[in-house]
């Protein structure tokens, strides 16, 4: 089974100039563990909001690739976001869920995806151009080759092992995270 830190490292290798928004908890630690950059906007809270923050950046900057990296629990809390993204259809947005079927930050309680809920099917039915569940190295490689070709929105639920790697913590200062991210678009200082 794929491991979340390996997946995140591969994603980071392929990202180029892409902006990445990470959902609270493990996904934020995973993204930070690949190396900090102003092109990352880490959520430490606002559970359920990662996909919509990503949609906002993608709509505001249609010529930039935007990736949302989050977990199954965070995605489930904002599940309606998939419908909202499906309607807007931003070609430059990818939503990538590291799906371990559990709420990893709170004691590894089983989530809905551990039972019958299929996030990729929900994304496909919501109007994502590409939506898949990824379980193998080969499927991951193929997705990473294709997902930034500006024919999105694309979605991947990447099935990963149930594990809790050591935390890698970005700064907590939200104002600094905001300002430095805006600086990558020459938006700060105003």
């Amino acid at each position, binding site marked *: 089974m794929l491991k979340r830190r390996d997946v995140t490292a591969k994603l980071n290798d392929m990202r180029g100039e892409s902006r990445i*928004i990470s959902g609270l908890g493990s996904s934020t630690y995973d993204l930070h563990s690949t190396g900090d950059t102003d092109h990352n*906007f880490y959520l*430490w*809270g*606002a*559970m*359920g*909001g*990662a*996909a*919509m*923050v*990503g*949609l*906002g*950046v*993608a*709509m*505001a*900057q249609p010529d*930039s690739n935007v990736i949302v990296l989050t977990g199954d629990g965070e995605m489930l809390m*904002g599940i*309606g*976001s998939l*419908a*909202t993204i499906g*309607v*807007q259809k931003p070609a430059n947005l990818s939503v990538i869920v590291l799906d371990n079927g559990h709420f990893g930050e709170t004691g590894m309680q089983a989530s809905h995806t551990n039972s019958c809920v299929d996030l990729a099917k929900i994304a496909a039915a919501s109007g994502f151009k590409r939506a898949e569940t990824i379980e193998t190295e080969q499927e991951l490689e193929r997705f990473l080759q294709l997902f930034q070709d500006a024919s999105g929105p694309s979605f991947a639920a990447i099935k990963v092992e149930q594990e809790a790697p050591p935390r890698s913590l970005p700064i907590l200062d*939200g*104002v600094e*995270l*905001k300002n430095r*991210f*805006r600086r990558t*678009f020459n*938006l700060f200082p105003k």
Partner: protein
Amino acid sequence: MSHQNKEDKGAMLLPLLKEHGVDFLPFVPDAGHASLIELAFDDPHIQPVVLTTEEEGVALACGHWLGGKKSVLLMQSSGVGNTVNMLSLISNCNFPFVALVTMRGNFGEFNSWQVPMGRATPDVLTAMGIQVYVVERDDELPKAVDSALYSAFSSDQGVAVLLSQNLIGRKEW
């Protein structure tokens, strides 16, 4: 309140929003916002975005600002209850934020199920660090919206303009 007045409200607000450079109007619909939403769909310079729940609009507005664009969230007071935890984004990161909130559950409300959230709306917003401007009369509305937009986007503040049921009229049953 007549249908005509509701149409006037949209016609009054749209030019003001455009004057402030607002790019997006995320919304969960309300009859009190209907004319503004309809006019915005016909305007090439401002883009309405339909949401499934109001908290999406808070996160979306933050994303828009991260990418250099301005949003104004349209919702009714019941939706304010859905936004509470997402509003932590505004206070943690000092995002500029403007919401236009049509009130239910006050003057002349028939549906008593709207009353609890209507009563709690100003307190909930205030508790989350959002400034509240209450508008009771038509002629106060442009100044309140203009001030909210100016404060939010000039100095990263969060402001909600509450449009009283006194202003938007009661829903007829």
